[in-house]
């Protein structure tokens, strides 16, 4: 079974303007969520490392 390459344009159901807008909004929200998660994990890592890094003997 082939997937992807054999899809013909007439097989694709076109999105309505409303559906396209909803998808765009969902994608933006997901991107923001992932960016927020990255920032959060970065900050947590910094905080967790702070004490250890500065107390380490040189």
């Amino acid at each position, binding site marked *: 079974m082939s997937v992807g390459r054999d899809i013909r344009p007439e097989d694709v159901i076109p999105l309505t303007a409303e559906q396209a807008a909803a998808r765009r909004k969902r994608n933006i929200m997901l991107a923001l969520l992932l960016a927020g*998660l990255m920032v*959060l*994990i970065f*900050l*947590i*890592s*910094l*905080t*967790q490392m702070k004490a250890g890094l500065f107390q380490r003997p040189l």
Partner: protein
Amino acid sequence: MLMKPRVMSLVIFTGVAGWIVAPGAGDPVLAFAALLAIACGAGAAGALNMWFDADIDAQMRRTKNRPVPSGRVSAEEALTLGVWVSVLSVAVMALAGGALAAGLLAFTILFYILVYTMWLKRRTPHNIVIGGLAGALPPAVAWAAKTGGLTIDPLILVAIIFIWTPPHFWALSLYQKGDYATAGVPMLPVTHGAAETRRQILWYSMALVPLALTPALTGLGGLVYLGVSAALGALFLLLAFKVAGSRAGDGDVVGQVDLYAVAAGGKAARNLFAFSIGYLFCLFAALIMERLAGVHWVVDWQALLAFGATQ
């Protein structure tokens, strides 16, 4: 709506209290991350609950407008969101609060979905008694995230919410009984009748009020907490006695769209339900306020007892 914001707010609030009253300074970034993880974990559990319970939610007036039964969100979307947010919240908790807090958060989510939603809710009137543990754990999760361990104090907070849950929900189910019966959910008023439910509410309330005083014995709560807990506890008992002496839940009670709308005879149950929310809020608010306002005046019970013995 999908993540049950009303439940989330209580979970966040008790979690914040757990963090604030736990010993140590605690880093603000870690506090934010841990509490966000608790909030998201609770929200994810709510979404998973709505995915699984869409069939019974559709039959109850109070819940039929929830996102899944009303068709605004598909069941698959709720499931996907619930699983991913659960995994992410536990991962963030592991980073911010360590293994114990992450394990407790994972246990809380799994307990709510597997034990309460999938197993108990449709089978036994003890559903909310045992399932209530999931809603009770957030202060312990926050405590573990801040300190890396657990003591008797966070477990007392868990016990308070755990014992508070049955009278809170049974008061609601007394005046929403018709809905639960329609959906086939074996809530206590449906399986054992309204009179038995009113009795059980009273028993649990009589256990709850003294239990809610114990933080003042261990030093977790001070004089302010003791005063708030004693005064509101007395009022809680009064309302529970009123429910016990009322006819709330007798006859055919039709479920309402509004959480606080009430049929004749059910007013005492509605009053207890509404008050129980304020009661729990005030208990935890008193604990928070004592620490933040610097009025955590711990009662020295040993000195008091010694003084009493010498008189």
